[in-house]
């Protein structure tokens, strides 16, 4: 609204935004600083700067608390799941956005309905399904579930995104004799890569931070993913009281997504508006 910008409005705007944002930034810094303290000094003054830096918290949490295993598990499950979501969702979204056939809308809606299903409904049946398929308590089983459950939202976003692309290039290629799969691989995917990346980042963040399904579908400690591992450490707080170690774990959990976010924030914002804001 570029009509009038009274000085007063601008000052108020800066003030409010500044207050809100400094709180958020402070929160992130505080978490990081706390992870470098030791427990005694932490509780002497919770909000002060650390006097000494205790990097050993990280060493402790990495080895003794086994975070390095959990980190490894997340680094296996999450990127693979995110990639496979694209492998399944992109072709589906492409066809659902372009082709016109009877029942196309029904099919699309069939997928999109999945967005509204609370995961708690699926917990128990999924548990027994995976058990019967002998993939319970495996990273593989967990990944398959992550992929399947992410399909509705990803297809929704990608369909909206694909629809906003004109199809001349594909038509030209088709006339030139390209087969549909080639068109898809060589033309459509490269052009739509911003959208694919955006959706992938969105999925990465969601799956990285997820722990409800991981909680139910994996049980042995070896198979814990990072977010679940930190949750488990939080649980053990009642016995160990090693808060600073917990904070080190928390930093390890949020650092990757934060870094990803800082570098890719434009893309992430895009992915939200893909399906919703058309044109």
């Amino acid at each position, binding site marked *: 609204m570029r009509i009038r910008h009274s000085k007063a409005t*601008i000052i108020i705007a800066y003030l409010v935004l500044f207050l809100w944002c400094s709180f958020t930034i402070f929160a992130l810094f*505080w*978490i990081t600083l706390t992870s470098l303290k030791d427990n005694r000094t932490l509780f002497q003054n*919770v909000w002060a700067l650390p006097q000494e830096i205790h990097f050993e918290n990280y060493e402790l949490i990495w080895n003794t608390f086994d975070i390095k295993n959990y980190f490894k598990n997340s680094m296996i499950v999450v990127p693979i799941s995110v990639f496979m979501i694209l492998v399944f969702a992109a*072709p589906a979204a*492409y066809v659902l956005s372009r082709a016109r056939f009877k029942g196309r809308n029904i099919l699309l809606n069939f997928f999109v309905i999945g967005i509204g299903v609370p995961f708690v409904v699926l917990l128990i049946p999924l548990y027994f399904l995976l058990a019967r398929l002998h993939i319970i308590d495996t990273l593989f089983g967990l990944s398959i579930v992550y992929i399947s459950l992410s399909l509705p939202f990803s297809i929704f976003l990608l369909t909206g995104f694909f629809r906003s692309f004109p199809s001349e290039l594909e038509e030209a290629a088709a006339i030139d004799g390209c087969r549909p799969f080639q068109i898809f691989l060589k033309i459509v995917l490269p052009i739509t890569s911003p959208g694919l990346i955006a959706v992938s980042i969105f999925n990465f963040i969601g799956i990285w931070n997820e722990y409800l399904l991981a909680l139910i579908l994996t049980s042995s400690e070896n198979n814990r993913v990072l977010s679940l591992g930190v949750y488990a450490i939080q649980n053990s707080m009642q016995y160990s009281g090693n808060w600073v170690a917990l904070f080190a774990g928390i930093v390890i959990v*949020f650092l990757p997504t934060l870094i990803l976010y800082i570098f890719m924030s434009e893309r992430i914002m895009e992915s*939200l508006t893909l399906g*919703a804001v058309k044109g």
Partner: protein
Amino acid sequence: MLVYERNRRLVIPFVGPALILYLLFFIYPAVRGLWYSTLDWSGFNQTPEFIGFQNFIELFQDQWFWTTLYRTVLIMVLGGVFIFGLSFLFVILLNSGIRGKSFFRTVIFVPNVIAPIALTTLWGFILNYRFGLVNGFLTAIGLEEFAQPWMGPELVFWSMLVMIIWTYVGFYLVILLSAIAKIPTELYEVAHLEGANPLKMFTMITIPLIWDVLTIAIIYWGIFSLKLFEIIFSFTGFIPKSEIWTTPVYVYILGFGKINPIYRLGYATAISLVLLVIVMIFVIVSRFVFKRERIEY
């Protein structure tokens, strides 16, 4: 799209794989859930016993069910009001000619990428009675008598609601911001020339022109808030206090409760199905209420 109109053979290889995964690991369990909800079952030692609708009859009389459902809906409604209210406020502030708009937007959005466990631990410390930031601040400015046990039984739910609002404002801010950015500024300029005040401009230009996006966002928040789990579950650490139980949390505790292993799988599934129905009803009603002619501009 001439090429694909005739080429129905494409559908199967392109959509097929996704459809199979979806059917097998999403739809099939959901339908199975329907069956489980008719059972009385602890899942492990006991063999399931068919009891028909008894689970559903029981849940209607279950005090915990109604309390948790009430809280869930409260989060959706109150949370929604504040989140969208704050989002619009921030949109206005960000659009009022300041510099660094991108920076502010980025920071406001940040909580959405941070793991819920980090957020809940953070807020647990901020709201701690003895050494929390809030009480510390109040004491520092002399308002010690206002220092409250924010995590105590009476206030913990509201504290959690504050955290939820703070976290998700950024998400809807981004959506609304980009939707409003698409409105041609000339519309506002003309309206201003014709003497419209800001409120009128808001209700007659902004809202109608972002209606599509706004309704999708509202519906998405409705669905999202009814499903909310991780951020609530870890709010009071270890096992969530019963004062913050919402329906998804209640379902989890019934089915997999760690403290008192209850393992009432059939009953838990029944409740989760009720939740699902509520979500569906919400979506259907919303789409009906929000329906409007597309405005082209």
